[in-house]
C-alpha cells in the first residue's frame, strides 16, 4: 500500500480531496466573517489632518501628541469602536472610523478646526488654546449658579497672571476695558470681566449662564478648542453605509464569478491536472485568508482586487508546470518522470518570474500609503502562497493522482497518443 497503487491509492486520494473540500466549505464563511472590513466596504470616514505652523510657532512633536490626545477625546465622545488614530510624518494625523452610520456628523465633530484665543479689549491675543489645560463646567456650592473653571499650563499661567495684573492696575472696576474676551475661530464666545489679578493659573468664568447645559457646552468648546496649533483637514473620504454595503456585495459577486470561471478554465484546458489545480486553489485561498486574518489586516476594495488578481497569477505557477508536464510526456517520458521533471524545471522559471513581481509589490508597500499598501500586501502574500501551494500541494496531489491506474490515460493530461514518439508508447 505504501506506493499507493491500485484501489488503495484511489481511496487515499479521495480522502485527501474530500478533506480539502470539507475544509474549504467549512472554513471559508467563518474566515470571511472574521475579516475586518475597510471603510470603503462598510461605510466610514478617513480623515487626514495637518497641523499648521505659524510664523510664531513651528509644530513640535509635543503639539502632535497633544493633538492626538484631543482627537482621541473627540472620537471617544462619538462612541465609535476601534478608531484608528495614527501620526503620519511630522505634522499629520490620520483618523479612520469604520462603520459610522453618519459620517458627516463624525467629520464635523472631529474636524472642528477650533482656534481658541483670549483677547483684551484692544484686540491683543494674550492667551491661546495651547496655553489652556482644562475647562470644566461646575455648579458653585454657594450661589448654585453654573460656572466654568479654567486651568492654564505653566506658560498660560504666567501670561494670564501678567495680563490680569496689568488690567486690574490700569483700569477701575467696571471699566469695559477690564474684560478678557474669549474667541473660538474668531467668534466671540464670552467676554468676562476681570475681578482681580489671577496669578494661580486657575480662573473662573462666573455668571451669565442660563443653564448648566449652556456652561457645559461652552466648557466643551473651550476644551475642544484647546488645540495646540491650528489644524486643517487636507484629505477626507467619507463613505456612506449604503455605498459600502453596495461595494461589498458587488466585490463578493466579482470574486465568486472570477474564481468559478478560472476554476472552469483550468478544468477544461488542463483536465485532470486542472482539477488538481482547483483543489490547490482552495488551499491557496485559505492560506491567504488565514494569514490576512492573523495579520489583523483590513480588507479594502483595492485589497480584494489584489486578491482576485493574485488568483489569476497563482494559476500561472500551475500552468507553467502543466505545460512542462505535457512537453515531457510528448518527449516520451513516463507519467511519473514527466511530473517530476515538470516540477523541477518549472521551479526556477516560477521563482524568477515571481521575484520580479514581488519587487514591484515591495516598492508599492514602502512608497505607497493606505489602500495602495493593502493592495501590495495582498498581492505579495498571494504570490508567495501560490508558489508554496504549487510546489507542495499540487505536487503531492499530482503524485497521488498518477498512482491511480484509472487516471493514467494520457488524454486526461491533455496529450494525444499520436503526439508521443512510437518507441515510448505503452511504457506508462
Amino acid at each position, binding site marked *: 500500500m505504501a506506493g499507493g497503487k491500485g484501489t488503495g491509492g484511489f481511496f487515499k486520494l479521495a480522502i485527501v480531496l474530500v478533506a480539502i473540500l470539507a475544509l474549504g466549505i467549512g472554513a471559508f464563511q467563518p474566515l470571511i466573517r472574521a475579516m475586518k472590513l475597510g471603510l470603503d466596504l462598510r461605510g466610514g470616514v478617513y480623515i487626514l489632518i495637518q497641523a499648521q505652523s505659524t510664523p510664531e510657532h513651528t509644530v513640535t512633536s509635543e503639539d502632535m501628541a497633544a493633538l492626538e490626545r484631543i482627537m482621541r477625546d473627540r472620537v471617544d465622545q462619538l462612541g465609535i469602536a476601534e478608531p484608528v488614530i495614527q501620526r503620519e510624518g511630522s505634522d499629520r494625523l490620520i483618523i479612520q472610523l469604520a462603520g459610522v452610520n453618519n459620517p*458627516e456628523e463624525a467629520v464635523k465633530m472631529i474636524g472642528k478646526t477650533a482656534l481658541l484665543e483670549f483677547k483684551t479689549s484692544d484686540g491683543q491675543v494674550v492667551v491661546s488654546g495651547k496655553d489652556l489645560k482644562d475647562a470644566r463646567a461646575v455648579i458653585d456650592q454657594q450661589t448654585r449658579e453654573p460656572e466654568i473653571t479654567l486651568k492654564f499650563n505653566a506658560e498660560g499661567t504666567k501670561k494670564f497672571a501678567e495680563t490680569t495684573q496689568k488690567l486690574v492696575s490700569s483700569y477701575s472696576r467696571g471699566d469695559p476695558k477690564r474684560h478678557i474676551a474669549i474667541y473660538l475661530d474668531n467668534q466671540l464666545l464670552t467676554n468676562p470681566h476681570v475681578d482681580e489679578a489671577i496669578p494661580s493659573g486657575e480662573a473662573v468664568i462666573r455668571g451669565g449662564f442660563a443653564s448648566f447645559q449652556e456652561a457645559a457646552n461652552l466648557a466643551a468648546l473651550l476644551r475642544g478648542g484647546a488645540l495646540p496649533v491650528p489644524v486643517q483637514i487636507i484629505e477626507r473620504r467619507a463613505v456612506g453605509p449604503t455605498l459600502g454595503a453596495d461595494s461589498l456585495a458587488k466585490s463578493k459577486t466579482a470574486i465568486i464569478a472570477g474564481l468559478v470561471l478560472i476554476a472552469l478554465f483550468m478544468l477544461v484546458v488542463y483536465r485532470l491536472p486542472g482539477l488538481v489545480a482547483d483543489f490547490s486553489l482552495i488551499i491557496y485561498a485559505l492560506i491567504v485568508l488565514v494569514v490576512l486574518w492573523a495579520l489583523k489586516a483590513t480588507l479594502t476594495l483595492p485589497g480584494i*482586487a489584489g486578491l482576485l488578481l493574485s488568483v489569476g497569477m497563482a494559476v500561472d505557477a500551475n500552468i507553467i508546470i502543466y505545460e512542462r508536464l505535457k512537453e515531457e510526456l510528448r518527449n516520451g517520458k513516463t507519467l511519473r518522470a514527466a511530473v517530476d521533471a515538470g516540477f523541477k524545471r518549472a521551479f526556477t522559471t516560477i521563482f524568477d518570474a515571481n521575484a520580479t513581481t514581488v519587487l514591484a509589490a515591495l516598492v508599492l508597500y514602502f512608497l505607497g500609503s493606505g489602500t495602495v499598501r493593502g493592495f501590495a500586501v495582498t498581492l505579495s502574500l498571494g504570490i508567495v502562497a501560490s508558489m508554496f501551494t504549487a510546489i507542495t500541494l499540487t505536487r503531492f496531489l499530482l503524485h497521488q493522482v498518477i498512482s491511480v491506474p484509472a487516471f493514467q490515460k494520457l488524454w486526461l493530461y491533455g496529450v494525444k497518443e499520436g503526439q508521443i514518439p512510437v518507441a515510448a508508447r505503452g511504457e506508462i
Partner: protein
Amino acid sequence: MNLNFNFIGRRKWWYALSLLIIIPGLIAMVLNWPSPLNFGIDFTGGNIVQIQFQQPVSASQVREVLGGLNLGNSSIQAAGNNEFLVRTTELSEEQTDQVISALRDKLGQLDLKRNEKVGATIGRELTIKGIEAMAIAWVLMIIYITIRFEFLSGLAAILALIHDVLVTIGLFAIFRWEVDSTFVAAILTIIGYSINDTIVIFDRIRENLRLRKKETIEELVNRSINQTLTRSINTVLTVVIALLALMLLGGETTRTFALAMLIGTISGAYSSIFTASPLWIDLRNFSRERHRQAAVTKSATKAKTRKATSH
C-alpha cells in the same frame, strides 16, 4: 502541438504595431498639455460627492443648483438611478455643507453616499511618489535580471515594460478616462506582470542556449517563444478572466484599476512575445556589431602604427 510561428522574422511589423498605439497616445498627451491625462481629484486636489436623490432629478437641475453657488463648471456625471458624481475644485468644509444643503433644499431628499476631499498638496505628493516608485521598481528589476540573466536581457525586459506602461497611459490619454490613485497601483502591478511574463520566455531562452542545437540565435529564440506560447496565452486568459469579473461586476470604485490592468496585462502578454525577445536579439546584434567595429578600428590603428614604425 508543435507551434512554429515566425515571431522573430517579422519583428519590424510587431514594433510598428506597437508604435501605432503608442504614438497616438503620446500625441494625445502633448495636445492636452498641461493635463496630459484626465487626472482625478486624487492628483489635482478637489472634492467629489456621490449623491442619490429619492425622486427623479436631471443632471441639468444639479448643474443649475451648483451654478447658483458659482460652481457651474464642475463635472457632473450621472451614475445610474438618480445618482450623480459631482467633482468640484477644492472646497472648505462650510462650502461642502452649503452645496449639500442647497441640493437638498432645491431638489429634495438625497442620500449622501460618498463625500471626499483631497488637498492639492496630497495630489502633488502622490504624483511624485508614483514616479519615484516606478523609477525604483525599474532599477531593482534591471539589477535582478542582470544577476539572474544578463544586462541586455534586463534592458530588453525594461524596454518591453516601458512599452506596456506607454500603451496603458496612452490609451487613457486618448480616451480621457479618469486617472485616480489606484492607477498608480495598476501601473506598478502591470510592470510586475509584464516582467514576470517576459522572464518566463527569457528563462526558456536561457535553458535552450545551454543545450543549443545547430541553429541561429533567431531560430533558437523563435523556438523558445513557441514552446512557451500556450502558457503565455493561458495565463493571460486567466488574469483577463479575473479582471473582466472585477470590471463588469466589481462596481464603480475599482473600475479604473481593472481597466488599466486589463490593458496593461494584454499589452504585457503582447510585448513579452512580440517585443521583448526580438528587442533582446536586436540589442545583442547591435552590441556585437559595435564590439566588432571597435575591434576592427583597433586592429586598423594597430596596423597603421606598425606601418608607420616599419620604415
